[in-house]
């Protein structure tokens, strides 16, 4: 019951409620730790996404606020990685009863 009222759960679902952001996460699953340049190249090539780099950056910021993407620096370059912690500890427990038939 506690998980249902966690405000972070809404933040996570809102960030997933966008095609481009889900496609970003799909590409991060194919190869983790990507620079903005690499991610944009993959999105154009695999999903025909024609947003500007600034547009993609805005989506990455939303995903980072939702705890789904994490930033690290190697040398002078910023890398984006998948961070599945909230999915694992908040979203999955909330969704699981719908499949398993457990009552909450």
């Amino acid at each position, binding site marked *: 019951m506690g998980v249902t009222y966690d405000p972070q759960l809404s933040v996570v679902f809102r960030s997933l409620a966008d095609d481009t952001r889900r496609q970003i996460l799909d590409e991060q699953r194919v190869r983790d730790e*990507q*620079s903005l*340049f690499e991610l944009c*190249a*993959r999105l154009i*090539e695999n999903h025909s996404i024609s947003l500007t780099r600034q547009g993609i950056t805005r989506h990455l910021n939303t995903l980072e606020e939702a705890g789904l993407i994490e930033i690290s620096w190697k*040398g*002078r*370059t*910023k890398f984006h990685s998948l961070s599945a912690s909230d999915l694992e500890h908040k979203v999955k427990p909330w969704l699981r009863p719908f499949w398993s038939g457990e009552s909450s």
Partner: protein
Amino acid sequence: MKMYIKSVFVDDQDKALAFYRDTLGFVVKHDIPLGEYRWLTLTSPEEQDGVELLLEPNQHPAARAFQEALAADGIPCTSFSVDDIASEHQRLQDAKVSFTQPPVKAGGATMAVFDDTCGNLIQLIQLD
């Protein structure tokens, strides 16, 4: 009118010469003292009369700001083409060159991005 120079800012011309000549395999065309710095250009061994690569000092604050902003986003400042990117990627990695991105198919070509140790990311590209 013809293409003449392609310019890359570098933080140290000696270090840049070592990298571009000894690691990447370009040949020196001009190395002319000019006060504090030099006019330093290289060409590809495959095109010695072709476009010259100018390694310019990055002393202007705008040049350094430009380099930092591009590097942060993983954006290369220029591009060199090869016939076989897989083997060039391997050769450069064996020479301890650091890649921010392995070869990726994009827009009808395959491209990778590496660090030139002088403030820049450089794209390596194999055109299909």
